[in-house]
């Protein structure tokens, strides 16, 4: 325990990142107790009220209580990120292990697709997909759409890691002692990659949230869900900036900032665990 605390004191990024995310969690949990989430729907409260004691974050033009929108919307946005990120890393891990451990034609194909896919601007492909399945995307469908490209980056980076790991001595020993391929992957390679996988996962969640907010700002999100990106869509739709309704965009902007900064610092912290060589420079 003491060692753990001492480690955390050195790994400030991890502490800062976790603190930011924890703060967000507390905000959502406590928020559910003090505000009626139903007020996140349009036409619930008086429109366009600046922040006051009654509505600490103000209300928007369609009559949503912005505090309720944030409390209800933050978990939705995070959910999209988590579903898409976990799916992406899971698919990416499987593909990366198949490619890097077995090599051969499977590697050629998987690496080829990942390399080509990564040079294409992801948001635009997602737009084409989202436009094709319009007719009201739900939050979960949104996550699936984002996940359809979320595996590319994990596949590429994890594959490179596995390639270097599989040449290590202990893998050689396991192979010589007759361990099967899947067993080596699960019991020898996977445990050593765990910190790295965790960093990749946080990174993937962050990219997925970014992609989902991008789609939402363009108007391709779940129209009736109060996610952070949809709030920004309405901000843009109603020209809240030019009209001087500053509270409307301040709340989602600050929360999105906290989300991205929190995830970023956690990634940096996990990277430090996964790759001790970084410590020299820190």
């Amino acid at each position, binding site marked *: 325990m003491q060692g753990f605390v001492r480690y955390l004191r050195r790994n400030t990024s991890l502490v800062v990142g976790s603190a930011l995310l924890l703060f967000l969690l507390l905000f959502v949990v406590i928020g559910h107790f003090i505000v009626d989430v139903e007020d996140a729907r349009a036409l619930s409260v008086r429109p366009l009220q600046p922040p006051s004691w009654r509505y600490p974050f103000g209300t928007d033009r369609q009559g949503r209580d912005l505090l309720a929108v944030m409390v209800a919307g933050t978990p939705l946005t995070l959910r999209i990120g988590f579903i898409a990120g976990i799916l992406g890393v899971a698919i990416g891990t499987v593909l990366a292990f198949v490619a890097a451990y077995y090599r051969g034609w499977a590697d050629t194909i998987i690496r080829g697709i990942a390399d080509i896919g990564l040079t*294409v601007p992801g948001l*635009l492909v997602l737009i*084409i997909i989202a436009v*094709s399945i319009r007719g009201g995307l739900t939050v979960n469908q949104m996550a699936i759409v984002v996940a359809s490209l979320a595996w590319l980056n994990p596949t590429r980076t994890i594959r490179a890691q596995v390639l270097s790991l599989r040449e290590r001595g202990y893998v050689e020993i396991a192979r010589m002692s007759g361990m099967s391929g899947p067993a080596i992957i699960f019991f020898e390679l996977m445990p050593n990659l765990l910190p790295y996988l965790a960093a990749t996962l946080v990174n993937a969640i962050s990219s997925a949230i970014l992609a989902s*907010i*991008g789609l939402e700002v363009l108007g391709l999100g779940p129209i009736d869900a109060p996610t952070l990106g949809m709030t*920004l869509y309405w901000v843009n739709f109603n020209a809240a900036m*030019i009209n001087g309704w500053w509270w409307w965009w301040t709340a989602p902007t600050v929360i999105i900032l906290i989300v991205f*900064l929190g995830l970023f610092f956690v990634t940096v912290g996990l990277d430090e665990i996964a790759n001790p060589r970084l410590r020299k*420079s820190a």
Partner: protein
Amino acid sequence: MRLIDITKRCGVFVVIIWLAASLNFFLPKLSGQDPVRSKLLQQAALGGYVQSGIDDMVKVYEARFGLDRPLWQQYFSYIGDVVQLDFNYSIANYPRKVSDMIAEAVPWTVALLGMTTLLSFVIGTVLGALLAWPRAPRWMAWLMPPLWALHAIPFFLLGLILMYVFAFQVPWLPIFGGYSMGATPAMTLGFVADVARHAVLPALSIILVATGGWALGMRGMMVTTMGEDYVTFAESKGLSSFTIFSRYCLRNAILPQITAFALALGQILSGAVLVEVIFGYPGIGTLLFQAIRENDHFLIQGVVFTVIVALGLATLILDLVYPLLDPRISYQRT
């Protein structure tokens, strides 16, 4: 680089184009949408006219857009058109051609992106190199935290904040558009200055974020490079610190940055689309945004395809130029 490698790389480019075109063609078909009918119904709802004639109208329009032929015929004629960058008419702005609308928007985006990408790459790389350099001025260490924080933010979010501070609170810069309303686009000094003033905030929101990314990457590479034996050797030879910095460290550390450049282009573009939307900047992003709003499938497809081709071309050129920059790489052993 041998001829066969060049051919192979160009082959990949052609595959990207073909995949993008096919995706564009089949995805909307798979969803069973009928762009013409939905557009007509939408207009009928808006104008309030009777819907009995709509089926006939759909037939006429489908014939005009070539949507009444068998699927494989449509596919081949689509591929044929797309190769010539002909994306049919805009459904929402008929009779304007999609390709004309794109051609109008492209220069704006190319100017904005070209400038910001180049500036952020150069500033970020130099900054990152200096951040890792022990003999750099002390105050530079203070740049690290803000660079890190900025790097984690989406472009358009910073754009919103900048817009509020510098265009709304302190109205130094225009808040919206690519040029002042009422200004006639012409190659006069006044108009160019006007355009430049409008580009400052969108450009700044891209540069500030992207610079952080390049700086972080470069700093990491510099730290690794400075640990190399040849740098220690150069130091013990008594070479000047500037020579070691520029010719031994910088030159070697910069190569992975250039590789990363190809991958970063797509991300920068995805982010820039949203910046354009936020600022109403008249480039590809805003055009795409309008197309999505008006459910204009041909326009959406045209924009997406054009961007994929343009980026594919850029990465192709980058890949072909790279061996010239790094003599260690020849395509002979890949």
